[in-house]
């Protein structure tokens, strides 16, 4: 099969998003921030509307609103608001507000589905550079702070006794999450970004024996999901973003089922 230029770009874009969302997704799972990821991603639609209205780059617009949302959620949580309710209100409000805001823009300028579900097959080389830079920034942040992030995740008190400031580490994760959202918007879309964070990492948990192992495996499984999803999309003409997430879900199901069968076999030995 000849790899068309647009397929190559799609593969690269997906691979870079998976490289960032794998390790970040592990932290999202370990710290139980799944809904937090959703709220941040949904806020991105509002960012799209604002960026188009004020004619600034969509990447910057989504980055700004995602960051704002993430900081807002962290602040409210820090003040003792019930996380579940706060996120439920904020996530859906941000999405609804974004959709309303987009409707004020001339229809020719916005293809809403592209932002809701991604449009990885039309990613241009220049967009690819932005996605790549975002993914590298996230990976760099996580690698740089890995040890303190991990310690703060295991126990904030232990971290404090080692001179680590858990609030700073939370901020690092918040920033990484906002960048990931902005970089992934074109690839899987606002509604499915959280899936790219959680599903590969959750599948990796089944086999991982160490935090690092889980992060690396999450990236590998993410890559498989991207390739399989794009293949599916190409052969069956299905939407690319949802196809990637479907592939990831299949990998997760396979992992969990496989681990269950393996354990049962070992017990019979």
């Amino acid at each position: 099969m000849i790899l068309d230029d647009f397929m190559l770009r799609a593969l690269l874009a997906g691979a870079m998003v998976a490289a960032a969302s794998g390790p970040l997704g592990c932290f999202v799972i370990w710290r139980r921030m799944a809904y937090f990821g959703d709220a941040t991603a949904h806020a991105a639609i509002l960012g799209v509307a604002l960026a188009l209205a004020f004619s600034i780059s969509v990447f910057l617009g989504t980055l700004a609103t995602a960051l704002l949302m993430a900081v807002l959620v962290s602040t409210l949580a820090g003040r003792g608001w019930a996380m579940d309710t706060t996120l439920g209100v904020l996530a859906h409000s941000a999405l609804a507000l974004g959709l309303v805001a987009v409707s004020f823009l001339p229809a020719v300028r916005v293809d809403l589905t592209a932002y809701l579900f991604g449009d990885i097959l039309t990613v241009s080389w220049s967009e690819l550079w932005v996605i790549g830079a975002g993914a590298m920034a996230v990976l760099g942040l996580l690698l740089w702070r890995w040890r303190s992030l991990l310690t703060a995740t295991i126990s904030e008190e232990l971290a404090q006794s080692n001179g680590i400031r858990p609030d700073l580490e939370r901020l690092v994760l918040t920033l990484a999450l906002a960048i990931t959202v902005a970089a992934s918007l074109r690839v899987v879309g606002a509604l499915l970004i959280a899936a790219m964070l959680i599903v590969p990492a959750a599948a990796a948990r089944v086999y991982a024996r160490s935090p690092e192992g889980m992060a690396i495996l999450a990236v590998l499984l993410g890559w498989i999901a991207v390739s399989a999803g794009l293949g599916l999309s190409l052969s069956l003409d299905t939407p690319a973003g949802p196809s990637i997430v479907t592939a990831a879900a299949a990998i997760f199901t396979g992992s969990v089922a496989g681990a269950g069968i393996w354990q049962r076999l070992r017990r019979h030995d």
Partner: protein
Amino acid sequence: MIAPLIRMAGVSVAYGNAAPVLSRIDFVLNVGEIVTIVGPNGSGKSTFLKAALGMTKPLVGTVERENRLRIGYVPQRLHLDPSLPLTVARFVKLGQFLDRNSIDSLLSRVGVPGVADRDLATLSGGQFQRVLLARALAGKPQLLALDEPTQGLDQPGIAAFYRLIEDVRRELGCAVLLVSHDLHVVMSASDRVLCLNGHICCQGTPSAVSAAPEYRALFGLGTGGALALYQHNHDHAHDHPDHAAAHEVHVHDP
């Protein structure tokens, strides 16, 4: 004269705009000293420990610690999300460089040999406390700080854990700052007991504190019979100089 490890002067701590949890604390921890902090629930024991270690900033007052004080901290509880795969060995060397031999000997020292490759989530409560202790000891601390480390252990488990801390302290010569919810078991090991209830009610040697009216008002007399008895046995095994302290508590039991 050796400088103290920690010196707190006029320290008050408050969370948010609420009334202070701790007020007007003056406290000095000397090299190698064992200090036990007791007090009812909500008396600010954990906050005291965190303020002393620099984990919580005081509202007013000063906390001075020896430069580069090596602290081994055993937290009150550690909830590890099962989604995080972590072996015992990896946990013990968290934030420090240790080879496999050191990890194995540390784990043997605290009485849980051979658990190095197990997942942290599979340990029992007692094993987990000992692994927490091993991690705290890994950096050869000058100060071992423990926040109610025996929660969830049964009585023999508690006694064994305290005996272990005493032994380890003798070997390392480190100071120990221990928050306890039960006075009777830890009394014999301590140089000093600090009775806390938002402020320092009374402090002194274990026998002095257990005789102090402030202490009796807080704890009453009849609560610790069984533990005091256990303490008694434990003292026999170790021939400890503070034997009298345990006796005193025991004798006053109705």
